[in-house]
């Protein structure tokens, strides 16, 4: 064991050449960018199979061909998104080692299990997606619908595993430190850490919201352009309704997460709220900028934060000043990210209520074109909320990569020139983005020209 000890114990401290602030910033930028990119595809991989399989099942049940046509179209789009997601996911697994070898060398064994399990879930999803796409018109109907189910389950399972690994970074468990190295590693305890249940649920619901509002947005655009046939209506209503039902549940889960932070990760909550001093009767700051240790220009709701955290105005909320300045996250991105996420979340709840109200009154979509206009951008808004939420939780954990155990600066690869890697990656991802959008757009437009055209031309000889 001496070789391993000799190298790893000497590892974190002496970071001389490379690993400077610019390279650290570049590494964080690269990881943030490629994760932020991948998470959008991942959301569709989690949420879209359920919508697709449900539509196919409804189609067979009701004999309504529009459901089947929608399901087939969505299945093809899933195929494209999945392939692109496989690419960006592969890149991420590289980056774990290229950018954060310090994290992987020391804690890879603690947090590796959920990644290994996710590998299998992803694999199963890939296989059954292949069967689902290839078996269209080739397998008996009932069997075909059933082959879609493993895709749904595996997609949700992937989210579960990956987010539980992320939750571990917030609430590291399942190991003891001896001479700086983890011993007595308990992989299941690491995976089932206290932050896991809420964070996993929050992310899975977010995935359904992003994919639901995202798909609905495409058909809302079509309806705004005058295509108000049954196909478009179903294409809009099915995913939109699902996402709109989830939206208020998401608010409740999010609220519970914030309260979890109040007891388990107080610094992050303090950064979210821009709270410097610990105290009771803490107001809720809406908007505003944090500088010199206080929130400026914010709209203050008296006692509101204390009420939200403990249901009593006297509830004590802990501020940033409780930890040394070197252990505090940057407040503004965290505060802003959180505000954006919450604002969009409530906006989406209201949009869903609008539909519910109209449906209750006259069994139809709201007559105002503004409803469709807002719905058309609801998918983009959901993506913005998703990214803002990730900025909140990731930047809010800084300067730690493993909360209170390892600093991000100790995890980064100490080589020089990481910023070159960042810049070239940005360029290459631009190409990948254009490719994905272009192909998806073609998929969509083929339907517009002739519904029965392009029926089976893809994925078949």
């Amino acid at each position, binding site marked *: 064991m001496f070789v*391993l000890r000799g190298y790893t114990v000497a590892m974190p401290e002496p970071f001389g050449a490379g690993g400077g602030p610019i390279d650290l910033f570049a590494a964080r930028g690269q990881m943030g960018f490629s994760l932020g990119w991948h998470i959008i595809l991942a959301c569709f991989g989690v949420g879209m199979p359920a919508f697709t399989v449900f539509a196919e099942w409804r189609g067979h049940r009701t004999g309504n061909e529009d459901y089947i046509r929608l399901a087939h179209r969505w299945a093809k789009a899933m195929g494209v998104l999945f*392939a692109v997601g496989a690419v960006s996911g592969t890149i991420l697994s590289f980056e774990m080692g290229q950018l954060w*070898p310090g994290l992987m060398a020391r804690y890879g064994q*603690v947090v590796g299990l959920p990644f290994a399990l996710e590998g299998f879930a992803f694999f199963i999803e890939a296989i059954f997606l292949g069967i689902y796409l290839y078996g269209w018109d080739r397998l008996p109907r009932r069997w075909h619908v059933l082959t879609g189910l*493993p895709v749904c389950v595996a997609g949700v399972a992937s989210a579960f595993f990956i987010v539980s690994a992320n939750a571990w970074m917030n609430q590291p468990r399942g190991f003891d430190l001896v001479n700086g190295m983890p011993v007595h590693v308990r992989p299941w305890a690491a995976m089932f850490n206290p932050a896991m249940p809420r964070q996993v649920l929050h992310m899975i619901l977010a995935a359904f919201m992003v994919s639901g509002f995202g798909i609905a947005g495409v058909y809302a655009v079509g309806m705004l352009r005058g295509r108000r046939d049954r196909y478009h209506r179903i294409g809009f209503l099915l995913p939109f309704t699902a996402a709109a039902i989830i939206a208020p549940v998401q608010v409740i889960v999010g609220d519970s997460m914030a309260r979890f932070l109040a007891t388990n990760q107080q610094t992050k909550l303090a950064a979210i709220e821009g709270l410097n001093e610990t105290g009771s009767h803490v107001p809720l700051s809406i908007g505003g900028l944090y500088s010199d240790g206080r929130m400026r220009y914010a709209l203050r709701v008296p006692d509101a934060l204390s009420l939200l955290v403990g249901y009593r105005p006297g509830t004590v909320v802990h501020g940033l000043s409780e930890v040394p300045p070197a252990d505090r996250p940057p407040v503004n991105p965290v505060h802003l990210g959180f505000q954006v996420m919450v604002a969009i979340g409530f906006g989406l709840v209201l949009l869903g209520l609008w539909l519910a109200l109209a449906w209750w009154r006259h069994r139809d979509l709201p007559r105002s074109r503004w409803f469709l206009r807002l719905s058309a951008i609801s998918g983009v808004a959901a993506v913005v909320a998703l990214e803002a939420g990730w900025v909140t939780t990731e930047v809010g954990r800084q300067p730690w990569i493993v909360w209170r155990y390892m600093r991000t600066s100790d995890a980064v690869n100490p080589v020089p020139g990481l910023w070159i890697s960042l810049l070239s990656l940005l360029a290459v991802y631009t190409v990948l983005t254009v490719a994905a959008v*272009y192909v998806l757009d073609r998929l969509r437009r083929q339907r517009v020209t002739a519904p029965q055209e392009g029926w089976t031309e893809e994925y078949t000889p």
Partner: protein
Amino acid sequence: MTAAQAVLALAWAGVMMYALLGGADFGGGFWDALAGSPRRGYGQRRLIEHSIGPVWEANHVWLIFVLVIFWTCFPIVFASVASTMYIPLTLVAFGIIARGAAFAFRKASTELWQLRLFGGAFALSSVVTPFFLGAIAGGVASGRVPAGLAKGDIIGSWVNPTSFLGGVLAIGTTAYLAAVYLTADARREGRRDLADAFRHRGIIAAVVTGVVVIGGIFVIHQDAPRLYSGLIGRALPIVVLSAVAGIVSLALLAARRYALARITAAIAVAAVIWGWPVAQYPLLLPPHVTVMNAAAQPTVLRTTLASVLIGLVLLVPSLVWLFTLFQRSRHAEPD
């Protein structure tokens, strides 16, 4: 067999699967590049596209599996290789992105200039990616990646004779595999002309790769003597198996026994993949880091092993079903 050995063997089986399945995808891109003018190469390109299409980029899953097993069970190995080799790994990443994007673009393109551009990008990235993967393997095998964060030479670790050999060998084997696989695909689709074309290419690729291997023996002898002694020592039976399987598949190709040639070609490449770890065992990062001193805690190894075995119980039948579905469907409907 200890848990560490078992996990290592499973990870290496993942490497083999990536080489045999993902490698053929890369090789398809190689032949795509050499298929000639758009008109002349149309049939070949369509066959390649058709063979890759259903599994489009999904074979990277094998690579992800291997990386994850290494970072969980041999974290110091993963961290050392990834940090020292971050430049070639970045190039591999670019190759994978460009390949996935270009394939998608080309499939959706109709204009000739678009087909040329994206076809070119697809082909180039299909050659660049295996080259750098091979170069990384060469750097590790020749003992240029010490344990620790970026402790190796960030240039010299992958710019050296063994890395160059590894890269060329990777291109050669992927091209060889793809050509052999495509002969059988072409015949199944009733395209005898294409089958003959790929038979011809398969034979050339086999001969060229064989020559590279023979030349490579001298490179390894000079540049990585420890690996050399392992290859002519403990790994000798595997090396011989690879050579025999390679020669047999040449004969089978010549005799147009494509289905059998497919199997022997896969054996030849699989033997190359297994020859390396057998030659350097128990070293993971020569000259110092061994399986024993790089392995994670026993609880981690056992848990991962159990998870992987349970995962395989789910995975293998699904995969078999997928492959049989593809094969059956293609039989049922000749193009």
